């Protein structure tokens, strides 16, 4: 079992993005878990360059869509155009047909476009006027959004957020990292410096190995207790869905694989729990107003602190 992938990816991404090792690791975990990621952060915290560098590391076909409020689903999934020469309509693929799609500023797209993308994420296929096209394997969407924008945006509703395996929030870097970023930007900073870490043909084998990672009954029982706690939690008005728990176990498997193990331990779950669960939970408004809680990740951490894992 290859345990050096995480370090290789982090080292390649470090060539262009400084101080984002944890985020690079989480992207890798999501990718191996077969999920999609929502990157959230204010402008200029390296969301886009991180996504681009990661795609480059994986050596897969990469496309980017810059979402705008006037977009149509056809701009993304493709559509039929009339070929004057052949005198017939032909299907022209949209940018969604790729391995890795960067959906930049997803919350600027209107709900129709968002739902078309989310359908592609869920079904791994697109349907245009009865013609269904399978998306290539592997398929991953890395969407970005700016939490500070309130005008001209369409916030993703809960059911759509639930489709994202992880939400990774990119905070401002600390001052020493920021100094390094400023210095680095005096020189050239280009994703061309990033080398491929994995060959496309290796991926299928790796995904198969991740799927074979063992999850004991006790670990599943532990997750069921955690799910129940989120639903009983008074500070939440919406707890974790069964899909959230399935996503969590997929991430735990990928985490175990990257840790060089073929079985999941409670730590594999705990270390990604906030990223997988927090964006799906809804805080109870009375708890927010009374100042009891401000961030769902805090609730997730409290629950994992309270629930005894199998030891």
């Amino acid at each position, binding site marked *: 079992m290859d345990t050096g992938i995480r370090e290789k990816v982090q080292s390649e991404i470090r060539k262009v993005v400084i101080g984002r090792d944890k985020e690079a690791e989480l992207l890798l975990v999501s990718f191996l878990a077969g999920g999609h990621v929502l990157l959230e952060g204010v402008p200029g915290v390296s969301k886009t360059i991180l996504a681009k560098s990661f795609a480059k590391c994986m050596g897969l076909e990469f496309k980017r869509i810059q979402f705008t409020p006037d977009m149509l689903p056809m701009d993304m999934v493709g559509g039929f155009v009339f070929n004057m020469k052949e005198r017939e309509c032909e299907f022209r693929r949209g940018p969604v047909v790729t391995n890795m799609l960067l959906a930049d500023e997803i919350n600027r797209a209107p709900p129709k476009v968002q739902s078309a993308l989310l359908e592609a994420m869920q079904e791994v296929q697109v349907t245009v006027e009865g013609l269904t096209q399978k998306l290539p394997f592997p398929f991953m969407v890395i969407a970005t959004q700016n939490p500070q924008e309130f005008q001209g945006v369409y916030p993703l509703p809960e059911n759509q957020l639930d489709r994202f395996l992880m939400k990774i929030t990119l905070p401002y870097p600390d001052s020493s990292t920021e100094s390094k970023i400023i210095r680095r930007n005096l020189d050239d900073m280009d994703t061309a410096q990033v080398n491929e870490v994995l060959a496309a043909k290796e991926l299928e084998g790796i995904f198969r190995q991740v799927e074979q990672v*063992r999850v*004991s009954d*006790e*670990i599943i029982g532990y997750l069921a207790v955690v799910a129940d706690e989120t639903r009983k939690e008074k500070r939440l008005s919406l707890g974790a869905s069964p899909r959230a728990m399935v996503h969590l176990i997929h991430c735990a498997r990928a985490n175990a694989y990257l840790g060089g*193990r*073929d*079985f*999941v*331990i*409670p*730590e594999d779950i*705990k270390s990604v729990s906030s990223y997988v669960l927090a964006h799906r939970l809804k805080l109870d408004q009375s708890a927010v107003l009374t100042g009891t809680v401000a961030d769902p990740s805090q609730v997730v951490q409290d629950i*994992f*602190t*309270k*629930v*005894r*894992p*199998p*030891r």
Partner: protein
Amino acid sequence: MIAIDIAVFVLLGAAAVAMRRIRPPVVQDLQEAFQDLDRSITKFVPDVPAGYTWGEAMERLKASGVKADWPKMESNLANYEAFRYGGREMPAGGEDEVVKLSMKIRRRIFGYRNKGKGSERD
């Protein structure tokens, strides 16, 4: 006189209980050794939450200066986890090191209580 006798007996009783508590437990295998370590951590390490994981506990103990053969402990833990969660066979050996760590945790706490903070009894 009677009061002094009572005081002496109470002290002797407390010492006997304390000795019992710090006597190494008899364990058959690595699983029992880790179960004992779990009891020691839950009972004697302050502010450990119910949801702690083995990795977190090891980090905590290392950071608080408990001396142990950590590479050996990590290897024992990896073997135990492979058995516990990975469905492997119970590994032979390794329990002595785990019991030793468990005892250190107990003695260290007694050391804190008896001698004041910062005393390490190895």
